[in-house]
């Protein structure tokens, strides 16, 4: 009998705890933030950066479904980098059950007061300085004075700088006797270079009457090869008749940098598909047949 009595007590306690939880936590927050979101804060509406879910559980005791969001951006030491203006925050009316928001809604970029240097950097670049941050989201009543639930999530942000072409340098001239057999390409590494990206070396022939950019944007490349993973050098064996007068003497080259999934590295204009600023080089026959000078300036 004692055991049966105890079971009843346990059941009552569990039910009371559940009821208590419902009445105290009728709004719950789940901030599913990508630990490495996109570097441009204006892009945070994209689902790739995560999602914010606010759940409203209505019970016998009705709660106010109107809420506001207060956002605080903290650096890795916990110091505040920016905080949203709760008075200007939008009022959301939650529907019972699951309410889904983007991470941009959590960030409230348009309502975020950032500290001086961070604000200036955001104005200039649309990004934060690379590093570890924390995003704290508080769900408050419409007056903003009662925090109903909150959550803090850390994230790391860094944008990329594409490689700069080193060799052949822009405007350089290569000896045709060597260049028709071998040309060495070198470039700087992707920054940051924590992940091993894929570099594709692409060389375009500048045809007769074409401008370099016309050839670059309109022609098919003579070379489109991947460098050995982790290296920033590619040795091209063209096997092209570069000594001849009808063979072209000008080329434009670039490096396309792809991430670990094979997607182009994000840049301000994605039409360029992760390609570095191109460089032009010429082939000159300094001695011997069909001697010509200075093809780059022709």
């Amino acid at each position: 009998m004692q055991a049966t009595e105890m079971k009843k007590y346990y059941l009552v306690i569990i039910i009371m705890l559940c009821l208590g939880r419902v009445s105290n936590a009728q709004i719950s927050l789940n901030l599913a933030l990508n630990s490495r979101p996109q570097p441009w804060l204006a892009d945070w509406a994209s689902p790739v950066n995560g999602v914010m879910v606010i759940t409203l559980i209505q019970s016998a005791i009705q709660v106010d479904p109107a809420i506001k969001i207060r956002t605080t951006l903290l650096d890795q030491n916990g110091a505040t980098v920016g905080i949203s203006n709760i008075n200007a925050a939008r009022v959301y009316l939650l529907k019972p059950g699951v309410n889904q928001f983007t991470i941009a809604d959590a960030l409230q970029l348009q309502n975020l007061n950032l500290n001086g240097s961070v604000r200036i950097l955001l104005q200039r670049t649309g990004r934060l300085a690379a590093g570890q941050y924390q995003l704290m989201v508080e769900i408050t009543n419409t007056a903003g004075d009662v925090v109903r639930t909150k959550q803090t999530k850390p994230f790391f942000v860094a944008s990329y700088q594409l490689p700069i072409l080193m060799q052949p340098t822009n405007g350089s001239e290569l000896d045709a006797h060597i260049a028709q057999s071998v040309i060495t390409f070198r470039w700087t590494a992707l920054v940051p270079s924590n992940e091993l990206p894929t570099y594709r070396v692409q060389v375009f022939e500048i045809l007769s009457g074409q401008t370099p950019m016309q050839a670059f944007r309109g022609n098919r490349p003579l070379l489109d090869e991947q460098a050995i993973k982790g290296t920033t050098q590619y040795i091209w064996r063209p096997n092209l008749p570069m000594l001849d007068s009808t063979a072209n003497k000008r080329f434009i080259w670039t490096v396309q940098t792809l991430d670990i999934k094979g997607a182009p590295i994000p840049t301000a204009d994605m039409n360029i598909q992760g390609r570095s600023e191109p460089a032009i080089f010429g082939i000159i026959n300094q001695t011997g047949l069909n001697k010509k000078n200075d093809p780059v300036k022709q």
Partner: protein
Amino acid sequence: MKYFTRIAAFLLLFFALHASAQDEKKKKVTLTGDMGVWYEGYGLDKTPEQSTPNFYQPRKPWNSLRYSFNPSITYGKWSIPVNFNFSMLQNNFLTPVTSGKQSIWQFLTNPANNFGISPKIGTTEILLGTQNLHYSDLSTGDLGIFGYGVNLSPGKFRIKLFNGVSQRPIDYVAPTILPPDPGIIGSYQRNQWMAQLGMEKEGKYFVGFNFVHAVDERNSVTSPPLTPIDPQENTIISFLATATTGNGWNYHVELGQSFHTRDLNTPLSIIPVEDFKPFMNAHTSTNKDNAVMLGLAKKGKDWEIGGKFNYYGAGYFSAGYPFMSNDRMEYLANTHFNAWKKKINVVASIGQRFGNLSLTSGPNITKQLIANANVFTQFNDNFSLNASFNNFGFNSADISGYKSVSNELSINPSYTWNTATMSNLISATYTWSKYDETIIIPASVTQNNTQTVLLLYVPTFFKAKINPDLSVMWFRNTAPSINLTLLTATGGMTWKAGKKINLKSQLQYNLSTTAPFTANKNILVTGGFDWEIYKKLTWQLLLTGNLYSYGTELPGNSLIPVYPSDPRYIESSIRTGLQYKF
């Protein structure tokens, strides 16, 4: 298509305004320039024809045909330069191609094609069709833009206006697995407005402002590209001043500010950047940043010395230079001078480039050292020596501690001597190149050592119509996983077969060995002619065959299906061009 109407209206207006201004006495038509057609056919025969992996891919289009029509017509006070350079085929790689046949508009705005006319009378120049306009290094100047505009230069004033399309509209097409098709990423039509207002005295100074506004037309495509290829908007304002003084000083200053909206689909917002009225309404993805270019040079009789400084803010973007790398600062000092009774010529430069100034890519700035020197010495009539040295060093900003250093030294002595019947040139080139890449986390060092030796002999017979050319090249590259040796022997010959025809041929044999494999062998044969058919008409032809046979680097039994011998391929090409000079 509205551009067609605008171009036509602009042309009519221009001719109407200038009809009364023509000088009746000087209505003589003259025609200069040239026109031509170029064809290149390419063939690839692989043995085995089908295999996995596909060991060699075609590297040129099977057929490529280009036309050029570049006359410059003068009629009285008029001059009308025409610049047509186009192909009916779409070989675009870097910019998207259309899924089917391109429309006339897509054909005209294809970046591979150029259709430009620039009639000029007096101080007025009308720009129609494709124009490659360089306003300045920070505003616009890289791209061919199809549109219409005008250049006016009354007195010292310079007024330039242009409106056109710098990126053609292409619909997005989704990739498919069956049949395998990568799809088309698509692009929005990018419209660009440009203006320059300044004052100039040619050869003395220029001072003025540049304005460039570019916007992607969202309804230009029925199937828009997917994110992250988003519609954008960009405005640049720059101030440019250049001056040259009588005593050889040159000054160059440009200050630019860009406003850039990365995605017009993001909400309108005055945070983080306020509207730039009346040109741009700011979005959450709008940012603005600055760039600076400074240059100073002094030119003497036998020397020149100069320096330049460039700064590009991390958010500086110009639709006129879409590939421009920003977030960097660089300075460069350069010089060239003659010495020893002009027998020594020295060209040298040294500079440094700093990147990641915004620290958005890591905790530290990147550093890059750039140093070049070239010394040419003509010791006497027979002997000359050229020596050059290049150094590039790069330090990354992140915790990996990435560092690369490239050093290259090249020495090239040449000796010539004459006999009664012939002249001889013997030339040697030795190049030593070292390229080291270091990563601290995870610890890794890659050392690339490269040596190149070239020997060249060119006999020239004074009375013979045949001139040969012989060279031998040895190249070795060693790195932790690479030991590559190339050995190339080349023989060439030109033969003046007639007054108007030059025959030419070349044979090259190449051994390419990657240790521990046996050598890949390659024979390259070329032959052709340059023929002046008539006084103004020339015909060039070049036939090329390239036979490449793999060694044990690619054994036939590694292919699927297994091939019992060494895989090989033959590339053939015919390149020919007819050119007529007016």
